[in-house]
C-alpha cells in the first residue's frame, strides 16, 4: 500500500510537470500571437503613414493646380506657404502614425516576452510543485512505513545538535537542550 501511495505521489508530480510544460507552451503560443500583433501594428502604421503621405501629396498638388488655374502664380508666396504647410502637416501626421504603430509594436513585443517568461516561470514552478508533492508524500510515507526499525537503545538517546534539523523554529523548540 505504501508503494502504491508513493506511486500516486509520483504520478501527481508528473501531472504537475506536465501542467508546467503546458503553461510554458501556452506562453510561447501567446507570444507568437502577440508578436504577430506587433508586426501587424507596425505594418498598419506604416501603411497608414504611406496613405497620409499620398494624401498630402494629393492635397499639395491640388492646391498648386488650383493656384495656377486661378491665375495666380504657383510660386506665389502664399501658395508656397500653403503647400509647405500641407506637406509639413502631412509629414507630421505620417510620422505620428508611424510612432503610434511602433508604440503598439513595442507593446505587443513586450507582452510576448512577458508571456514567454511567464510560461517558463510556470514550468519552473511546476518542478518545485512536483518536488514538493513527492517530498511531502514521501515524507508522510517514510514517517508511516519507512521508520520500521523498532525503537532501539540508540533512538532513546537524547538528540544532539547534529541530529536536529536546522531552522529557527527548531531553536525555539530545542533551546533547552543540554
Amino acid at each position, binding site marked *: 500500500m505504501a508503494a502504491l501511495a508513493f506511486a500516486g505521489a509520483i504520478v501527481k508530480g508528473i501531472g504537475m510537470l506536465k501542467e508546467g510544460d503546458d503553461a510554458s507552451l501556452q506562453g510561447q503560443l501567446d507570444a507568437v500571437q502577440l508578436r504577430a500583433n506587433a508586426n501587424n501594428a507596425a505594418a498598419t502604421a506604416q501603411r497608414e503613414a504611406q496613405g497620409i503621405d499620398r494624401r498630402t501629396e494629393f*492635397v499639395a498638388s491640388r492646391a498648386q493646380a488650383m493656384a495656377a488655374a486661378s491665375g495666380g502664380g504657383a510660386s506665389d508666396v502664399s501658395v508656397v506657404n500653403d503647400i509647405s504647410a500641407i506637406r509639413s502637416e502631412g509629414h507630421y501626421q505620417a510620422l505620428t502614425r508611424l510612432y503610434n504603430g511602433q508604440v503598439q509594436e513595442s507593446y505587443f513585443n513586450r507582452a510576448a516576452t512577458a508571456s514567454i517568461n511567464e510560461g517558463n516561470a510556470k514550468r519552473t514552478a511546476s518542478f*518545485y510543485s512536483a518536488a514538493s508533492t513527492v517530498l511531502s508524500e514521501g515524507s508522510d510515507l517514510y*514517517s508511516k512505513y519507512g521508520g520500521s526499525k523498532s525503537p532501539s537503545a540508540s533512538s532513546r538517546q537524547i538528540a544532539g545538535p547534529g541530529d536536529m534539523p536546522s531552522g529557527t523554529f527548531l531553536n525555539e523548540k530545542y533551546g533547552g537542550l543540554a
Partner: protein
Amino acid sequence: MAVLSMGGRLPDENDLGPRPNPQGETGVIHDNSGSIVGDAVSRFGGTLQDIGTKIADQQDRLQMAQARSQYLQADVAAREQLKDTTDWQSMVPTYQKTMQKAQQEALGMVGNKIYRTNLQLDLQNDFAQGSSQVMNIANSKRQNANRATLSQTLDSNRQAILLAPDSKTQTSLIESSNASIDAALNAGTISQTEAQSIRSSHAESIDKGLIDMKPPQDTKNPDGTIVKGQISMLQDSLKKHDGTLPGDHIQPDERMDMLRRAKTKLESQNNGLKSDLRADVSNGIAVLEAGYPLTPDQAAKLTPARIKAIDPDNASEYNYSVQQAQARGSAINNMAKMPVMDILKTMNNSAVKGASNHMVDDERNAAVISQAGTQIINKLKDDPWGFLQDERTGSAYAPIFKELLQNQDPEQAKDIATRLVAATTQDKQRIGLSTNDVLPSAYIDRIIEGMSKVGNNQNLAQTVAAQAQIWGDNWPRVMAQMKNEGKLSSALMVLGQTDIPDKARNDLASTVLKTPKEMEAMVPKTPGVTEKHSIDDPIDTGMASYRASMGQSGVTDVAAMRDAIRRTSLVRMANGSSAADATSSSINDYLGPNRLSMVTQHSGDVYRIPLSRLPDHSSPESIQDGADVIRKNFTATSDMIGATDKAVKDARVSNLTSDIRNNGYWRTDQDNGGLNFFVNGQQVRDPNTGKPVFYSWASLQGAHDREITRIQGIKKQMQDNGPALIPGAVNY
C-alpha cells in the same frame, strides 16, 4: 488660408484631416514570471519546512511514547519485584526511588521541551498514583504481617502457658498475650470487635488445650504429649493463678462431649493403624507372590516387630502369611528365569500330590505357582522380548537395551550394540527361546522407521551405512530379522548389505524413493538400444549362478537383488552408459568376484561364498577345500537309518555314506553365514544331534586347516620314515 481671386479656396493642411494624436504607452505589461517562480520556490521551501517540522514532531512524539512506555515498563517491573517481598516498610521508598530514577531516565529521552514538560506532568501523575497503590499494598502487607505476628505470638504463648512450670510464668505469658492484642488494636490491625473475639478464643483455646491433653494411660502412644505429673502441675499452677481450673471455664456437658470425642478418636486411630497393617500385609503378599522383591519401604512395613506392635492379636498369623508368600515368591522368581520346559516341571512339582498336614498351604502354593507359571509361559509365547524386560527374569539384555535406547553418543552405540546382541543370545539360551531374532521386534521397527523417515536418497544411504557400522558383524543378522519380518523394501534389503561397492550403493540409494514407473521414465525408450529385453536379458543371464545358489527358498532375495541390479543399471544408462555396459557393471558390482565367489560343484549345484563374511586369512579356495574334505569324509551312522535288522542297517549305512560322499552338495544358507549340506534334495542331518548339517565359514576354514595339518603330518612322517612305512600313502 489662401483665397483665390475667383472666390475659391486653395486646399490647405486642414484638408489632410484631423491630426492623429501620438499615443503613448497605454498599457503596462506585467511580467509575473518572477513572482510565479518565487511563489513556487517559496512553497517548496514551505514544504521542506513542513517536512522537517513533521519529522521533528514525529520524532518528538516517538521519543515521548518510548519514554512513557519505558517508564510504565519500569513501573510494572518495580511492582513485580515488590510483589513477594515481606519487608513492607521498605516497599514505598524502594518503589519511589526506583521510579524517580526511571522518571529521570524517561525525561532524558525526550528532547522537545514542550513534550518533555507534558511527559513530566504525566509521569508525576503516574508516580503519585503508583506510590499510592504501592502504599496500599504495603499497608495491606503490614496488616497481614501484624496479624500473622499476633497469631504466632498468641499460639506460642498458648503452648508456653500449657507447658509453663509455674504460675508466675503463666501470668506473665497471659499478660503478654493481652498486650499483643492491645498493640494490634492500637495499630489498627484488628478492630475492637475482633480484639474481643480473639481474647475470648485465646482463653478458650488454652482451656480446651488443657482438657484435651491425653490421660496418663495413653502416653505410650507415640502421639502422647505430657505425663500426668505435668498436667497436675499445670492444673495446680493455673489454680493458684486465678483460683480456677481450666475445666471450670467449660460447661459440664461440653466437657463430657470432649471426653467422648477423645476416646472415640483414640479408638479410631488404633483401628486405622490395624486397617493399614492389613492392607500392608495384603499388598506385600501380592508383590511377593508375583515373584517380585519388596521395596525397602514395603519391607519396613512388614517387620515382625511392627506387626506385633500394631496388632498383637493377629501378629503370628500375619507373619506366617508373609513367610509363606516369600517362599512362593522365591519359587516364582526362579521360574521367571527358566526355559518353558523347566517352568512346566516346576508347576508340576508344586501340584498337590496328596493329603498332608499342610494341605491348605500346599493348595495355596500349587494355585499361586500354577497361575504365575501360566502367566510367564503366555508372556514368553506372546512377547518374549517384552517379558525379558521384567526385572524377575534377571535379563542380561534388558539393561543394555535400555542403555541403547537412551544413548545419544554414536561412538558408544557400536559397543552397546555388540553387548546387546551378546546379551540377547545369552538370554535366548537361558530361557530356551528358539527364535533367530537378535533384537526385539519393537527395536527393529524403530530402525526401519528411522530409515523410512529419511526423505533424501543420499541421507538414506548414509543412514543405512551408519546402522551397518553400529551393528558391525551382527548387521547381517539384524538385516535378516528385518527381512524375515517383511519390513524391508527390496532395495533396502540390498542396500543394507555392507559389502556392496560405494558407487553401486550410491546409485541404488538414489532410486530407492522412486516408483517403478519413475524408474522406467529415467531412460528414454530407444528401439534396439534400451528396449526392455536389452536390459532384462543380460541381467537374467548374469544372475543365473546367483539364482542357482539361492535355491527355491531364496526367491525373495533373488527378486530383491534383481530389482537392485536393474535400478542401478537404469541409473547408469541415464548417466550415459549403454545397456550392455550398465547391466554388466551392475552385475559385477553386486555379484562379481570381488564380492561373491561362485562354486559349481560336481553335482552341478552352485553355492556362493561371500568374501566379506569369511574369517581372516580365509579364501574361497580354502573354504571350498574345507567343504570338499567334509563331504568326502562324511560318514553316516545307523541312527540315520530306520531299519531294525543289523545287516540291512549296515548295508544301508554304507550305501548312505557312499551316496553322501559322492552326491552330496553344499548350498549357502539364506543369511550367507555358511553352508548347508544336502543329498538327493534332502538336507543331511547330523547323526549325533539330529539337526541339519550346517558349517559356518569359520568351521569350513577349520576343516581345511585341519586337513592341511594332517597332510603336513603325513609329509613329515614320509620325510622322516620314508613312504614305504605308510601303506597307501599318496605323495602330495
